[in-house]
């Protein structure tokens, strides 16, 4: 996620600044706070450090609620037979219904209902056996019917929980687990896209996206900062991807986040609610919530009008196949029991399984699961190497991931394959190379992925030196040239031995067997 969003930072910031909408004040008090422009600073607003108010003695506390729009992964749209595809030629995926031709009627896509039910189950929601569709009226050029079909009165799923974690603490390596309540999940239509050509004063409309199925997930304002919100969204993204109900690519708009941020002093009523719309990446989410722009309070915005959608009967979800009415074909019903049976392993279960089967730490499993493809990478290495999982996890989570992040690459783009790393670790396990050489070889593999670890070791003569006579000679030389240190060791300061060991390894370019070196040095300094 981090890698994929890196290139679009600037572009997004413009959008965010433009699309910020200030909502009506929720109470009499107007809280003003100075918040810097999004993306103009790289410092981060952390959970512990609440928004600082210039010349205000009392600290402000943030309250964050999210509305997430997840595009349902389906072949066709929510109410029509048009295909769902990103970046198709403009207006090439538009049915008569999508263009709101008069006389056309919505026909509910069963797949979208299943996806919403599955998502609801994964988030411990109550699935409403009967839900209703409503029209929400707006006059936007990219909303051809003049209304969006959504679920306002009775959504398909309510009262769920999303449990998420993030790394916190001073060294940012402590796993902090929290949860946010899911108020509801509602099925609704996506809108089209408007493109404004300012030069010619034209608005161009692309309806390919119009009518694509969305799940709107409304979260209660249970979070207090951008970091928590970003972690919650990331967890949600992982869950949706595991379920296959949403591809979750934020840069393709498949997952869009609106954040409602409000700040207040503890004990005071909540302040002005600011809505930040359409945040397209986790990093921007954390920043947007952290900074938000200076508040400009405008007058109340006219509420959209609602009415029941008369062309869609109530949506019924059945508990079991036997509870469905006999006159309805089985292909026309959604059965809870069947959807539940099809639930895949969710990220949380996956982390538990990783901790249990590989005896790794929870924070390790967190990193493994949160980086796209890292679990698979890790498991592939473990499968092919004699090195224990706890050793592998260090390589994968630190060495590999460090390099990937440094080069802004995703796991799938890694030049070092799991097989190459496994080979390398095997060489180390067999005692053919030392751990420091192994790290050196890894860097070589990264630079020249065409070669095997074996080749690099041979070419650069990096194999371990197990010639006792040679090591004896080098050790003697080090001992002779460092009388003070030897004196210190003999005086009882055993730690100094490590310094001498380092000097020996320097001489041998890290190839000497450290166990052997230690015993020789101990012997010579005793």
């Amino acid at each position, binding site marked *: 996620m981090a890698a994929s969003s890196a290139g679009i930072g600037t572009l997004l910031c413009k959008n965010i600044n433009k699309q910020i909408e200030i909502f009506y004040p929720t109470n009499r008090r107007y809280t003003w706070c100075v918040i810097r422009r999004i993306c103009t600073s790289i410092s981060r607003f952390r959970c512990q450090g609440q928004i600082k108010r210039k010349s205000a003695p009392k600290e402000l506390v943030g309250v964050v609620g999210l509305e997430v729009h997840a595009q349902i992964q389906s072949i066709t749209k929510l109410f029509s037979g048009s295909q769902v595809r990103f970046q198709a030629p403009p207006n090439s995926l538009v049915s008569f219904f999508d263009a709101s031709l008069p*006389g*056309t009627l919505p026909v*509910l896509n069963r797949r979208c209902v299943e996806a919403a039910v599955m998502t609801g189950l994964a988030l411990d929601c109550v699935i409403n056996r009967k839900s209703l569709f409503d029209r929400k009226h707006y*006059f936007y050029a990219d909303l*051809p019917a*003049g*209304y969006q079909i959504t679920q306002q009165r009775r959504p398909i799923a309510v009262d769920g929980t999303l449990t998420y974690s993030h790394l916190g603490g001073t060294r940012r390596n402590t796993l902090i687990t929290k949860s946010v309540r899911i108020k509801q999940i509602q099925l609704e239509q996506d809108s089209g896209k408007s493109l404004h050509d300012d030069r010619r004063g034209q608005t161009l409309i692309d309806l390919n996206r119009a009518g694509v199925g969305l799940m709107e997930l409304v979260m209660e304002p249970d979070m207090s900062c951008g970091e928590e919100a970003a972690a919650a969204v990331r967890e949600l993204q992982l869950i949706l991807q595991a379920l296959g109900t949403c591809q979750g690519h934020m840069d393709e708009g498949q997952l869009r986040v609106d954040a409602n941020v409000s700040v207040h002093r503890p004990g005071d009523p909540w302040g002005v609610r600011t809505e930040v719309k359409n945040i397209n990446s986790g990093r921007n989410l954390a920043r947007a919530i952290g900074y938000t722009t200076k508040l400009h309070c405008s007058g109340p915005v006219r509420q959209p009008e609602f009415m029941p959608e008369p062309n869609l009967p109530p949506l019924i979800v059945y508990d079991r196949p036997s509870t469905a009415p006999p006159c309805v074909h089985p292909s026309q019903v959604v059965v809870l029991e069947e959807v539940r049976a099809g639930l895949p392993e969710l990220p949380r279960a996956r982390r538990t399984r990783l901790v249990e089967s590989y005896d790794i730490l929870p924070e390790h499993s967190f990193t493994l699961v949160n980086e796209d493809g890292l679990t698979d990478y890790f498991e592939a290495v473990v499968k092919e190497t004699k090195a224990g999982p706890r050793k592998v996890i260090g390589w994968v989570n630190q060495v590999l991931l460090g390099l990937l992040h440094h080069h802004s690459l995703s796991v799938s783009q890694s030049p070092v394959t799991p097989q190459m790393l496994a080979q390398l670790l095997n060489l180390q396990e067999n005692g053919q190379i030392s751990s420091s050489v192994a790290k050196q070889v890894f860097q070589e593999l990264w630079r020249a992925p065409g070669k095997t670890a074996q080749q690099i070791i041979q070419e650069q003569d990096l194999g371990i030196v197990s010639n006792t006579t040679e090591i004896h000679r080098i050790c003697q030389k080090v001992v002779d040239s460092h009388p003070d240190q030897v004196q210190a060791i003999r005086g009882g300061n055993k730690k100094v031995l490590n310094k001498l060991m380092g000097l020996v390894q320097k001489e041998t370019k890290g190839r000497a067997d450290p166990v052997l070196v230690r015993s020789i040095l101990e012997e010579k300094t005793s």
Partner: protein
Amino acid sequence: FIQRLLRIEVSLALKEGRISPTELCRKCLNRIKKTHHLNAYITVSEELALKQAHEAESRLSKGVSKGPLDGIPFAVKDNFCTENIKTTCASNMLKDYTPPYNATVVQKLLDQGAVLMGKTNLDEFAMGSGSTDSAFGPVRNPWSYEAAYREKSGADPDADWVIAGGSSGGSAAAVASLTSFFSLGSDTGGSTRNPGALCGVVALKPTYGLVSRHGLIPLVNSMDVPGIITRSVHDAATVLGVLQGHDVKDSTTVTDHPTPLTGLPDDFDPRNIRVGIPKEYHGPGLSQETLAQWSRVADMFEQAGFQVEQVSLPHTQHSIVCYHVLCHAEVASNMARFDGLEYGHRSDVSSSTEAMYAATRHGGFNDVVRGRILSGNYFLLKQNYEHYFVKAQQVRRLINEDFRRVFGSGVDVLLTPTTLSDAMRHTDFVQEDNRTRSAQEDIFTQPANMAGLPAVSVPTALSSRGLPIGLQLIGPAFQDRSLLTVAQWIEQKVGFAPIRYHGDAGEGEIRVDVLPSTPTVWEKNYLIPC
């Protein structure tokens, strides 16, 4: 002679080769031209009609008829989408709109070989009860030109013509004037039955959910039903038999297999039928002559052994007000799509998108439509929603409950007037605005729409002015067949004479033997489900 023929008889004549479909189509096209002054049609699809007739002819000559409607001319209200044929809704907004698809009901009729003559006039977007508020001018009632009216009222038909009723006035006038053998109307609050009664034809509003609305440009989605206008009850049953059934494109159509309507029984035992006379329908404004017809038919029922009883539908008086609230709210919503972007009229104003919207909608809609959008949006405003929309829905449920209770007590069918009186002169009708007229004209018809029930208007007699009077039968949901069976009984007993065509010599050439009025081929062993 053709003017004496009911459609079934034409069908038989076609099959027996006594008249060819092309000949029949030409006769109807000629008649459309001769009755041009009625303004019943907005578009006449002459070329297509002749092509279809020709195809039917070649089928019939090979003995491979598609069914009872093969080669039969029909007309369609201009708010049903017809592929490659303009569909205007009698509005400037869609004046040049040609849909890319056929409404399901139109497609079903074409698939049966029926020959589409054209698209009929209506009140703009079906909002009205006189067919007087059309961008293409008002429809004239064919009975204005009949001897009965001219002689009895001494009127000059060119000045004193009477309205056709609405909003499906063009469809009713087309069938009454024999330019088509049946037609499609739409019925939201009585829009099929009202003109049916005023034009002296049979007009059926089927149960909501029995016939697909896909392709019907909506007025009120929760009440709209495609209506069927014919010259006989039997024909209405035949057409309904073709149209009814589940449509995957309309999720509100029922999935159960509907009762076949291949023939209506005529030998049921009247003693098994209970007819309810709702006392609330005896209200102010009901003309003496309509009341007399109502009593006459009730007496006929009684004399024939039907169990006739007075019933009460206590919430009827509140129905029309609630109907208007719900109607206007849905209108406001349904009309939102007409912004000139994707289709239809678009204003030249281009200073901003909003300005373009405003100018487009002002130029595209008449005052009636704009007025309903305005009030509908008012009803839907967040602060008003509970007071109007929600309350109206609650009353709608009570009205539904009234009917459910009466039918649940064993009543099979309700007999009521269709309209307050016979057709008004146009000059009188336009003295009041559209809203007032709709409230008067839909008073007896819209409760059936509120409750989604089947209802049919059957002509019973001519008034002292020489104009038709119709009575309405309302039945329980999905009992359309039983309803039509009773309607047919009335039809046979009252012996209403439809318009006879006053053609020139050329028109009289079609020689078809008039069949007995009671066909003998119908099923005999059918009992009405009670």
